[in-house]
Each structure stands twice: as structure tokens, then as C-alpha cells.
């Protein structure tokens, strides 16, 4: 196998792994927001895993980009990884990759600075995740022949279904959330339900009766 082909294979492989990692990162992000837990692990494991996998994903994307650039079979300028639609080869699909990567860079940079920046602004930029993943997915399907058939296509569709389920779960919660003006009434309702069912205080604690999450 020539050096060029090795780079090409490396780029395809790291791209696929990156897609899997990004899928996990997005699901974990929603899990953090919903205060969900991974079985057997402490709460900080969810936040740490979300953060660490996102950095790992970027590492894989870096290799994915560099190997694609180094491969001589097609000419892909390095800058096209961040400037969308600036490559000659597969201008559109690679452009989507650049858009997704730009959003990821914004999210990661702001998250590294999150202690020093405005909370609302941080959150607004972090919401780009919901745009970044679909764009990355489109880039993956459009620019990789591998993903367009066989078990890799099944895997890609599997990722899409997982993300869709997670997003629906997140939206369902947002729809159910009690608006601030109704929270006191909701606490009264929970309290009445608890006392009339005569739960033990330990059971009540476990139901985590609160309405501002």
C-alpha cells in the first residue's frame, strides 16, 4: 500500500470514529442538561465524559483533516477545513465539514473560557451543537462512499436515530417544563400528593420534588 493510500484510509477511519464520538458527546450533553446519570457512575462522570469525549473527538477530527490534506491523490488545501467551500475536491460536502468544525471550535473555545464569559452567551453558542451534528452527519454521508452502503450505512443511520431520540427527549422535557410563574403552584401540588400518599421522607427525597430543573 502506498503512503498516499494509507493517509486516505486513515482519514476515512478517523472520520467514522469522530462521527461516533460526536454522537456520544451530543447524547451526553443532553444527559448533563437533564441531570441524568450513567449507571454505577457518579454525577461528575457524566460532565467529565461529555467534556473529555468532545476533546477526543476534536483530536480525531484533527487527524482526519491532516491525513486528508497529506494524501496526494486529491488536492485538499488545509485551510478548507475551516473555510467552508474552499476546496476544489468535493467542494460542497467538504464545505459542510468545515461549517461543522467551525461550530465545534466555537463551542470548545467558549467552554474553555466559560468561567470568564457571560453565561447567556456561552449557552447560546453551545446550542450550536444541535446544528453542528446534523451538518457533520451530512458531510459524512455525502463525502464518504463507505457510509453510503453496507454495515457502515446501518451504523450511520443508527447514530442518526440515537441523536433523534435524544433530541426528542430534550424537546419533550422543554415542552413539559413548568413556567416560572406556575412553579409555586406545582410545588403545592407535589407536596399535597406526597403527604396524601404518606410517603416516607426517604421516598420523597428520592422523587426529587422540585420544579426548577
Amino acid at each position, binding site marked *: 500500500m502506498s503512503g498516499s493510500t494509507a493517509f486516505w484510509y486513515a482519514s476515512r477511519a478517523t472520520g467514522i470514529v469522530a462521527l461516533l464520538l460526536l454522537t456520544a458527546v451530543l447524547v451526553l450533553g443532553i444527559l448533563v442538561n437533564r441531570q441524568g446519570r450513567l449507571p454505577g457512575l*457518579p454525577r*461528575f462522570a457524566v460532565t467529565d465524559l461529555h467534556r473529555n469525549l468532545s476533546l477526543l473527538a476534536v483530536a480525531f477530527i484533527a487527524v482526519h483533516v491532516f491525513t486528508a490534506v497529506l494524501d496526494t491523490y486529491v488536492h485538499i488545501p488545509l485551510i478548507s477545513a475551516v473555510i467552508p467551500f474552499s476546496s476544489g475536491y468535493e467542494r460542497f460536502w467538504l464545505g459542510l465539514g468545515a461549517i461543522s468544525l467551525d461550530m465545534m471550535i466555537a463551542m470548545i473555545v467558549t467552554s474553555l473560557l466559560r468561567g470568564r464569559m457571560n453565561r447567556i452567551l456561552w449557552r447560546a453558542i453551545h446550542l450550536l451543537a444541535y446544528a453542528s451534528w446534523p451538518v457533520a452527519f451530512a458531510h459524512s454521508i455525502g463525502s464518504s462512499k463507505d457510509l453510503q452502503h453496507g454495515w457502515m450505512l446501518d451504523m450511520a443511520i443508527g447514530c442518526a436515530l440515537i441523536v433523534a431520540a435524544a433530541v426528542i427527549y430534550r424537546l419533550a422535557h422543554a415542552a413539559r417544563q413548568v413556567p416560572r410563574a406556575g412553579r409555586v403552584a406545582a410545588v403545592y401540588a407535589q407536596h399535597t400528593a406526597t403527604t396524601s400518599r404518606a410517603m416516607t421522607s426517604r421516598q420523597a427525597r428520592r422523587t426529587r420534588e*422540585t420544579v426548577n430543573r
Partner: protein
Amino acid sequence: MADTLKVNPIDCTGHGVCAELLPELISVDEWGYPIVDPRPVPLALDREARRAVAACPALALKLMRTDEPARSR
């Protein structure tokens, strides 16, 4: 001059990550909200305190400068 942990109760939604990372200074009430030790953070726990502040998903935990002297335990 030492730092004191303070939680912004408006931003806090009771994730409880802080209490896991710093049980010496933070515990959780029956509704999941943090009860934070109001005294200055002992020097030995300073790094852990900063980690807890960084880990809060809601950015609700803060380390604030106070004029009290640092304590060792």
C-alpha cells in the same frame, strides 16, 4: 485574603456535581440543592474547590474573594 464558595441560587438547578466533588464543604438538601460552607476555603482544598466551580453545569458555583484570613482546616 481567602476565597469563599458562593452559589448563585437563581442559576442553580440542583445538579449536585459540586457536592460530589467537594463533600467536605458542600452537601445537598432534601430537594437536591447545595448547602455550601460559608467559611473561607481551607488552602488544602483550594484546588478541589476550583475544580468544583469549573464543573458546575449551570456555572452557578463561584469562588469569591473575601477579606477573611485563610484557614488551614
